[in-house]
């Protein structure tokens, strides 16, 4: 029991009024503190009053926002370290092992800096950047034997870096191809090469080497095909086809991914620390310059055995490339602006784009480039209500693409898409082709309703879908910031023609929509980019029935599905009458040159007007932001990234 009353309040006797006034002062002071913080936060938030005046016109879905894809202030010179901030984590699909590595950013490093494959590119922006040249080979050969034989002659003077230190031979190329065919070595795009004679035997494990690849001497390699493949040269430009020295490669036989830490270079740069790597296999340690896909650095230094005179297109200015992972994306751009980084592997947020667009001193450092990619909404042809072509067409009429473009940040992040493949891949063919053209790309309610009236799901001909199949249609979306902006727009548009969409947002939506057995009617997420500069890299993997697989399926619309295929992959739904474009694709694949391009263009039209599997809405640009110390930078159209072989730093 406490007998002392506890003395409670601050003021000494008789000054009750004083005390009450103190209380008011107290509240006022607290309010002031809160207000001060709010002002501070607001001030820091809107440092630049973004008047969001776009520097380009937004009408027309053309690439009016894209310039030359180049920055140059005339003072390129050798030397310096080029530092790149890489967002979140490397994300390599095969730990930087070229046999299976499919990440586009990794290809940028291989193609520009480390691996010279038989066929290469000039590392330029635009159409010039998609033209093939002989890189390891002396030139790009024409096929003989009615398109069945390709013979390559290797260039002189190309040597392996440490620890191999000898001339590259044709056997090294054959070794790499065998590795690619061997299912135990982790190849992820071997399907491009199944037309080589003897490939399947190795793929099924019955042979060790591909009979259709022969090396008459150290400088010559011959490929025999089972049938003509019009873009075979393009396929031989991909990093998995670059040679691999067996001295090191054998150490990693059957261990996909591990080679990534000891990639031997035949290009201008190599992994830092390769000079300390020792053979034989028992003594082999990973190079210090790369700590694995879970690590946070990848450093490239000059390859001492590289001969610049053998290379007409790579400039190789910096002495070192330092790629470092940064968990804070904002910080990457802050550092680029501050000059502690030169370049970034990241996606600028709309606010950053606005800042650079409106500030004349920063504007030249932001370089938008045509990316060979399409963003689209996919519709599953087997799931109601999308099993009705009129509903699919109505969706193409009603979607407000200009609003979606705004959600992405305006014309700089991308141009409005009107068909499947971006025009640049047709050498600007189909540039004006817009089968569902609407005023200002804002959608056309009248045309959408007219189309809907033809649908069996609108028996009353109201112009809106009245059937129950249109209520609560499942749509899978992703959780990125831009998805949260697009979803409400899509829902509002669909509602205008009577479709109510139930949207499920999933982090990493791809894994869900790549499983046909889940029978997803629609997805907001997909985006498809080329593997190399041929439209076939779109059509074959997106619309051929052979591409429909149980896991990792990319023919989301299930074009060409048959009940047999459906049973194999576990898909259910309306399987009758699903259109197929298999014959069209197969035919175009055999064509060459302009005939090939025209063939693909016609297929594009057929898909947009008769099959209608998608609502394409954006051809996104690749926007890069470079730092103040960069003296030269240009886009590499093949890798859809910076042409590291041309950049220069102060």
């Amino acid at each position, binding site marked *: *029991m406490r007998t002392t009353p506890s003395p409670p*309040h601050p003021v000494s*006797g008789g000054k009750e009024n004083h005390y009450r006034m103190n209380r008011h002062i107290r509240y006022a002071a607290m309010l002031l503190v809160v207000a001060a913080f709010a002002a501070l936060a607001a001030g820091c938030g809107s440092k630049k009053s973004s008047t969001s005046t776009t520097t380009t016109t937004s009408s027309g879905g053309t690439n009016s926002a894209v310039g030359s894809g180049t920055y140059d202030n005339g003072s390129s010179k050798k030397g310096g370290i080029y530092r790149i901030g890489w967002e979140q984590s490397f994300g390599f699909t095969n730990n930087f092992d070229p046999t299976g590595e499919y990440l586009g950013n990794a290809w940028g490093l291989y193609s520009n800096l480390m691996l010279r494959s038989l066929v290469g590119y000039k590392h330029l922006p635009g159409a010039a950047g998609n033209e093939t040249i002989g890189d390891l080979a002396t030139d790009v050969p024409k096929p003989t034997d009615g398109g069945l034989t390709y013979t390559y002659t290797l260039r002189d003077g190309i040597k392996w870096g440490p620890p191999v230190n000898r001339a590259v031979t044709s056997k090294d190329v054959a070794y790499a191809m065998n590795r690619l065919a061997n299912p135990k070595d982790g190849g992820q795009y071997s399907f491009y090469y199944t037309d080589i004679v003897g490939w399947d035997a190795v793929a099924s494990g019955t042979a060790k080497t591909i009979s259709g690849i022969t090396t008459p001497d150290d400088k010559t390699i011959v490929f025999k095909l089972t049938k003509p493949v019009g873009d075979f040269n393009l396929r031989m430009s991909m990093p998995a086809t670059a040679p691999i020295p067996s001295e090191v490669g054998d150490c990693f036989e059957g261990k996909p991914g591990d080679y990534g830490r000891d990639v031997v270079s035949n290009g201008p740069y190599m992994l830092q620390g390769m000079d300390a790597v020792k053979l034989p296999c028992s003594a082999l340690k990973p190079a210090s310059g790369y700590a694995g896909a879970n690590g946070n650095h990848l450093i490239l230094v000059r390859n001492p055995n590289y001969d610049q005179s053998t290379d007409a297109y790579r400039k190789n200015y910096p002495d070192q490339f330092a790629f470092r992972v940064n968990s804070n994306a904002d910080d990457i751009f802050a550092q680029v602006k501050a000059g502690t980084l030169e370049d970034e592997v990241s996606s600028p947020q709309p606010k950053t784009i606005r800042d650079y667009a409106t500030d004349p001193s920063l504007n030249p450092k932001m370089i938008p480039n045509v990316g060979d990619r399409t963003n689209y909404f996919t519709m599953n042809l087997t799931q109601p209500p999308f099993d009705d072509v009129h509903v699919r067409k109505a969706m193409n009429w009603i979607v407000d693409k200009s609003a979606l473009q705004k959600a992405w940040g305006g014309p700089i992040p991308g141009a409005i898409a009107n068909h499947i493949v971006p025009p640049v891949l047709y050498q600007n063919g189909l540039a004006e082709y817009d089968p569902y053209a609407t005023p200002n790309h804002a959608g056309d309610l009248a045309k959408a309703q007219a189309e809907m009236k033809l649908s069996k799901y609108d028996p009353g001909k109201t112009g809106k879908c009245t059937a129950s199949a249109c209520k609560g249609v499942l749509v899978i979306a992703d959780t990125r910031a831009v998805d949260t902006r697009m979803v409400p727009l899509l829902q509002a548009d669909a509602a205008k023609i009577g479709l109510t969409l139930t949207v499920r947002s999933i982090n990493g939506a791809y894994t869900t929509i790549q499983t046909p057995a889940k029978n997803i009617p629609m997805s907001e997420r997909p985006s498809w980019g080329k593997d190399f500069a041929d439209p076939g890299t779109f059509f074959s993997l997106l619309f051929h029935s052979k591409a429909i697989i149980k896991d990792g399926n990319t023919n989301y619309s299930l074009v060409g599905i048959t009940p047999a295929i459906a049973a194999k992959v576990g898909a259910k739904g309306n399987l009758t009458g699903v259109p197929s474009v298999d014959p069209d694709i197969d035919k175009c694949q055999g064509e060459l040159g302009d005939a090939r391009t025209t063939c693909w263009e016609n297929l594009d039209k057929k898909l947009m007007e008769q099959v209608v599997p998608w609502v394409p809405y954006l051809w996104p640009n690749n926007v890069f932001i470079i730092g103040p110390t960069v003296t030269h930078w240009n886009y590499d159209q093949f890798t859809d990234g910076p042409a590291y072989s041309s950049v220069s730093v102060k």
Partner: protein
Amino acid sequence: MSSARQGTAHDGTLLEVRGLTVRFPTSDGVVQAVSDVTFSLSRGETLGVVGESGSGKSVSNLAIMGLLNRQRTAISGQVEFMGRDLLTLPQDELRHIRGKDIAMVFQDPFACLHPMYRVGAQIAEAVTAHQDVSNDAAWARAVELLEHVGIPNAKSRARDYPHQFSGGMRQRAMIAMALVHNPSILICDEPTTALDVTVQAQIIELIEEVKREFDIGVILVTHDLGVVAETANSVMVMYAGRVMEYGPARQVFEQPQHPYAWGLLDSMPSVERRLSALVPIEGSPPSLLAPPSGCPFHPRCRYRFEPCPTERPPLVAPVPDAHPDACWLKWDDKVREAAKRSVTRLGDAA
């Protein structure tokens, strides 16, 4: 062990309190905890301060010790000790007196000892607070004092923690802690309330022994009249922060003059009186925020009459030989009522 005789007035007065008033401002108003308390204390004297909880008896002592927060409390009056007014002394000077010249023992020894330090260490701490001695010397003194207050095996018990002591032993330890510097005044605030009845007697006896041995003045605060009856030399009855009656113990017990004192005596069981039912005082103590006007006891007083609610009776002796009380009743009425309740204390008989 001689006791210091500094600061003693020629008649042995140690402490003179005049008009002590303590007020606490709160958000609900001003609490008038203590009003106009006046008393004195001499060597060898035990002053028993009696009253219900909330009567202001503890607060007065805290005010004397300087244990009230001066910034939040309005204290006025005079507390003269060793020629100085303690109420005007600065804190650091007061600190040198506290625990050294005036020591205090509190009610609940379990809560009053720090649970995480050894008993001996806490007593040794009291030593080093006022004397610059080595830790060993301080510890030795602690053990010595523990022995003195009757703790068996003092040397090893000193290393124990408070929760290992029984209630009575803890109080002995508190007393030991208070005696470290041979204080002139020992204030005991309800020292036995938390203890068993058998232990109570031991503690009271200990205090008395200590008083005799060191020739000090003791202020013994309690609500238990029985304790006061045995040991006090003078008694001060407090109610609602004021002194109701103050005088030599024998007088207060044999001729109580205030209705509150009568009520207290009525409610006290005693073998002396005929066995009748205990008579409690009706009602409850007033709120100190708004004490009753006039006599603070009047709402509960059976004898109240016309002046009581409006005019406060001063603390004066009604007739020259009597001790002061604060009541408007006529002297004859007081004598009559006192006669009904007079208590002859054991030891005072004859």
